[in-house]
């Protein structure tokens, strides 16, 4: 008898769950859902949260489109490739979002690539710079430039501004972004110096490593003029700190991921003078949206925005613009409109997407000075 009752109860529960599920499946047509998958915990948390700040600010300024409310559905991908794929699956299958924004980190975005493509939901990466994020994927776009450009910019900087003729590379081997950037830097630097052996050494580390002394000593033995060390900000800050502690004084260059407050607090005095390329600067307004973004950001958060916050803002605006122009919420229609974006005035510069869905825009060089990121130069493609 008791078994029977328990069985009945379980069936009742399952039935209830099934019913409530059916209800949510009925698409609420007066809400437009934008799925956001970002690392909010784990190694990349700072980057993900800063990007989210920009998206939420944009959502606050422009909460409706076509008379419908825009709802952000935010999922934490925990800085993990597997979790990123899970998060993307959840957004397209369970939440049935119209568009996906994210993620900080090329590896994390690439993990979601096949999922959004299969579901036919357009996705916009905000600061993921590895070419493979959008390459061969009709549904992935981005509002930032790509690593071949960024790598060239840094190689040029090393050659012209630092006067370097030899370099060493420390790369985060488990991070597609870092490996890609190191590769493009190498190609450009060899071309600039005209020397096939201009890169004196390459060392690897993996995400989460905290001790780089062995790699740094080995490289410094070869006496390079400069070290190129693109990678996640947490590991990079420790890496530069250890390099300085070991008495390595040559300039250390990196990429856009470094631009986080944590890079400065963890690195302290050691990261002074480090050079990085990034997307945006508060010093010069690139478009009329730059000013709107900057004022609103300062008012809402009471601090200076990071580049990736501006890119988050731009990603959201681009989606809204596409929905407004087409008057449709159908993911396929939105996708086609995004793909044809020309001269869209984003906060972090004008966005024109090329045939791969990559933005072609200026890069900004910043130098760490007095505990802050200071604008140094703007470089056009």
């Amino acid at each position, binding site marked *: 008898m008791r078994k029977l009752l328990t069985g009945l109860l379980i069936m009742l529960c399952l039935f209830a769950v099934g019913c409530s599920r059916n209800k949510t499946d009925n698409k609420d047509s007066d809400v437009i859902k934008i799925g956001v998958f970002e*690392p*909010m*915990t*784990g*190694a990349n*948390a*700072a980057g993900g*949260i800063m990007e989210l700040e920009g998206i939420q600010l944009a959502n606050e300024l422009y909460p409706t489109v076509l008379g419908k409310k825009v709802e952000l559905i935010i999922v934490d991908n925990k800085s993990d490739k597997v979790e990123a794929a899970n998060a993307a699956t959840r957004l397209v299958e369970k939440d049935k979002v119209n568009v996906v924004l994210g993620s900080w980190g090329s590896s994390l975005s690439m993990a979601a690539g096949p999922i959004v493509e299969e579901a036919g939901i357009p996705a916009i990466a905000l600061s993921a710079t590895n070419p493979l994020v959008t390459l061969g994927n009709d549904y992935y776009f981005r509002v930032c430039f790509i690593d071949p450009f960024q790598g060239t910019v840094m190689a040029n900087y090393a050659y012209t501004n630092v006067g370097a003729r030899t370099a060493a590379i420390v790369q985060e*081997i*488990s991070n597609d972004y870092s490996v890609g950037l190191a590769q493009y830097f190498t190609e450009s630097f060899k071309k600039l110096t005209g020397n096939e052996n201009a890169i004196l*050494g390459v*060392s*690897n*580390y*993996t995400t*989460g*490593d*905290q*001790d780089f*002394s*062995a*790699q740094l*000593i*080995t490289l410094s*033995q070869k006496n390079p003029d400069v070290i190129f060390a693109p990678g996640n900000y*947490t590991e990079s*800050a*420790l890496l530069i*700190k250890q390099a300085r*502690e*070991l*008495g390595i004084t040559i300039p250390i260059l990196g990429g856009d991921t470094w631009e986080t407050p*944590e890079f400065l*607090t*963890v690195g*302290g005095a050691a990261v002074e003078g480090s050079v990085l390329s990034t997307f945006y600067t508060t010093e010069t307004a690139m478009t009329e949206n730059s000013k709107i973004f900057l004022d609103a950001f300062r008012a809402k958060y009471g601090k200076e925005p990071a580049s990736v916050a501006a890119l988050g803002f731009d990603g959201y605006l681009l989606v809204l613009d596409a929905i407004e122009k087409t008057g449709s919420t159908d993911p396929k229609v939105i996708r086609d409109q995004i793909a044809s974006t020309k001269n869209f005035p984003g906060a972090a510069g004008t966005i024109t997407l090329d045939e791969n869905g990559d933005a072609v825009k200026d890069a900004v060089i910043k130098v760490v000075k007095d505990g802050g990121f200071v604008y140094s130069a703007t470089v056009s493609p």
Partner: protein
Amino acid sequence: MSFHIFLQHLTNGLSLGSLYALVAIGYTMVYGILRLINFAHGDIFMLGAYFAYYAISVFFLPWWVGAVVAIGLTCATGLLIERVAYRPLRNSPRISVMISAIGVSFFLENLATVIFGGRPKAFPVPAVLGKSIMIGKVSIMPVSLIIPVATLVILLALMYVVHRTRTGMAMRAVSRDYTAAKLMGIDVNRIIAITFATGSILAAFGGIMWGLKYPQLQPLMGVMPGIKCFIAAVLGGIGNIMGAVLGGLVLGLAEILITAFLPALSGYRDAIAFVILIAILLLKPSGILGTKVTEKV
């Protein structure tokens, strides 16, 4: 490779190794007494570092007061965990306690993420310890000198306690035969609590030293060191305090020297630890200093 470069690598290896040793002692002591691999040990290590961060950076306590407060709080947390998660399972099968330990580990990691936040924090390093010293051509951070010395002092103190005091005798008795020790009038719960307290204090101390060496805190910072120190304990012979120290040193040196001499392998650093673990399990499962235990059937 010139001699001073080799010395530099050796110093770095010893410094990393003694840090592993410090945390491995905690693993080994708890295992020795309870036959329990305390999976939460790495997370207690993380808590120690965070407590110190809050005491020093947020409550503005002087550095050493902050460190002592953090060690005290971590010790209390360790005791609480033992009381809540392990003591009720004292007479359950060993696998239940192990599952409980894994649960505690996940619980602490997620609790820390909620309370402390996912973004990394910079550990406050006092100015005196922030500058490297040059000895000949070898540059050494002050922490790298403090850690091996502290590990040695702790090792000697523990050896004294375990082999020369009544509590130590009780500990050895409990580890040999739990039921018989109880029959002999030993307050088993008290002895186990003391062991957990000692282990937690060492984890907290290790966490603070780790923060000084790699000044960056995040909720999952205990996971990898936890696994590495467990490997160090197994390598030396789990349950053996001297073995834990030896295992830690071997692991630290192996990691640094292999990356130094074979730069191509520098990306596989964590794999080195696991290869060592597999090798030791195949060749001498009881560890370098371990003795073969005959299981009673």
